[in-house]
């Protein structure tokens, strides 16, 4: 620790240190082990999945077999399309709403904001029943667009951008307006550039949300052509009877690899951005 320590406290500090190390070790093992075990079985032949022989040969066979056993390539494309669709719509729609709420005054602005915030609490997951019926009436069951639709407009995104836009100095806005910039110009040249870090953070949160979403796409999709990886993985893993654990583990790692790799590459920025969202 950086502050001065009196001699009498040194024994106590050493004990604290040991306690801290123990807690750290226990937690790190508990948190790391399930994933490490899965990595072990995924990269070894089935017969080694219960015996930890460090000399056991490593193999990619499980990944090859899992990849060929289900249309994972298609599932990946679906997930990427779904995430892109959702994130780009989130960016555009939340920006417009936040801009309208911050830059203009109108009678119902307060109640309108309260109405929007309802979605922070009553999220689409809770309304799966009625939303399924709505989607069926629109003829969008079993489509990627149908999976994305309830999430395109997001109260969380609106809230985040509203908070950010509120910090844009009035003088900047006024100067741009004096120079003859219209509503769209001011949005694009003044507001959007100042919110760049928030877009990055929100984009990451939004992509990981849609990449990981499961219940709603499970209900809405029933063919491989519309299924995202999460649903594909669960379909693959619950064809129980015959499927080997090593294949299930290989498939699990395979479907999560892109996000995990992205995280490892951008770890610093990722964590900082999550923090930034949390502080607001």
């Amino acid at each position: 620790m950086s502050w001065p320590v009196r001699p009498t406290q040194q024994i106590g500090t050493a004990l604290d240190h040991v306690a801290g190390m123990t807690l750290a070790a226990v937690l790190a093992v508990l948190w790391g082990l399930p994933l490490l075990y899965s990595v072990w079985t995924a990269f070894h032949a089935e017969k080694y999945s219960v015996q930890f022989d460090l000399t056991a040969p490593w193999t990619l066979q499980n990944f090859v077999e899992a990849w060929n056993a289900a249309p994972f390539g298609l599932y990946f494309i679906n997930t990427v399309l779904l995430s892109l669709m959702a994130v780009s719509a989130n960016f555009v729609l939340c920006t417009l709403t936040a801009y309208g709420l911050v830059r203009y005054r109108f009678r119902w602005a307060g109640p309108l904001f309260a109405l929007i915030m309802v979605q922070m609490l009553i999220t689409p997951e809770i309304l799966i029943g009625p939303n399924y019926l709505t989607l069926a009436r629109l003829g969008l069951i079993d489509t990627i667009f149908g999976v994305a639709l309830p999430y395109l407009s997001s109260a969380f995104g609106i809230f985040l951008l509203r908070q950010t836009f509120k910090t844009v100095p009035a003088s900047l806005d006024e100067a741009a307006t004096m120079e003859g910039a219209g509503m769209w110009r001011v949005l694009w040249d003044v507001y959007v550039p100042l919110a760049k870090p928030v877009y990055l953070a929100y984009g990451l949160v939004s992509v990981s949300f849609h990449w990981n979403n499961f219940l709603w796409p499970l209900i809405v999709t029933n063919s491989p052509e519309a299924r995202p990886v999460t649903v594909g993985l669960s379909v693959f893993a619950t064809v129980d009877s015959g499927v080997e654990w090593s294949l299930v583990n290989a498939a699990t790692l395979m479907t999560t690899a892109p996000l995990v790799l992205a995280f490892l590459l951008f770890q610093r920025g990722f964590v900082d951005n999550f923090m930034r969202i949390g502080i607001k």
Partner: protein
Amino acid sequence: MNKPLGISRAIALLGVPLVLLITFTHYPLLQSVVSSFWSKGTKIRPSKFIGLDNYAKLFDDPVLAKVMWNSLIYAAVTIPVTVALSIAMALLVNSKLPGRALMRLSFFLPTMLPMIAVANLWLFVYVPGYGLIAQVMIWLGLPDINFLGSSETALWAMMVVAVWKEAGLFMIFYLAALQSIPQNLKEAAVLEGAGKARVFRDIVWPLLAPTTVFVAINAMLNAFRVIDHVVAMTNGGPNNASALLLFYIYQVAFGFRDFPYGATLTVLLAGILGLFAIVQFKLLDRRTHYQ
């Protein structure tokens, strides 16, 4: 700034987002209230108005009683445990211990994985005779337990999975809060003879309060709306031992195809969340007056 919003601008800026929000949040909420007053229609008997019958049914539905009890235990255990563990993790990662980077990675990775992948990992941890826990139990000479297959342990097994996945995310928020605590406050306390526990109780913990409120609200929302692991690991079983409220809604609406009763349960869940929100906003208010 603050120019009047004309009708054409209002439509251009707010039109599409509001239509989408209303269609998939407010309309289904109202629709749930309306259809909770109707009976389940069949081919021969069309759905008819039955007033409050669906609500009366709530009170003598033994499965609902079980599910409500499960959800209550689930929330009452996972929220405080997640808060405590995420603070412990943040303190460890924020300390000067060796291996901090590895710890942060190990704590945070689970939050990056989809819940469905986490469920698969833990299915493999829990498999009797063969999974990670079973092997440790055998090695220690203890009896093998089917954690997911017995009604005493299934719900607890779900809670472990949820805490394992979520604690790392909340750790990040605590980490941010810890790093914003002025170092001189702690130094002053230490100079006056305060021990570590005292510094934590009287300085760190109160300053973390806003983060704790934020984390508790999110943990509460997740406790009620994340059921992916239940669907993938136990399907609510055995005998509804691990079924949560949202899982029951899913089962009633999509398993039994009873949309009106599903709508009634949805109204119940929305009501519970609304109530929690009001209570927590009140708490938040008191905190701000306190400062």
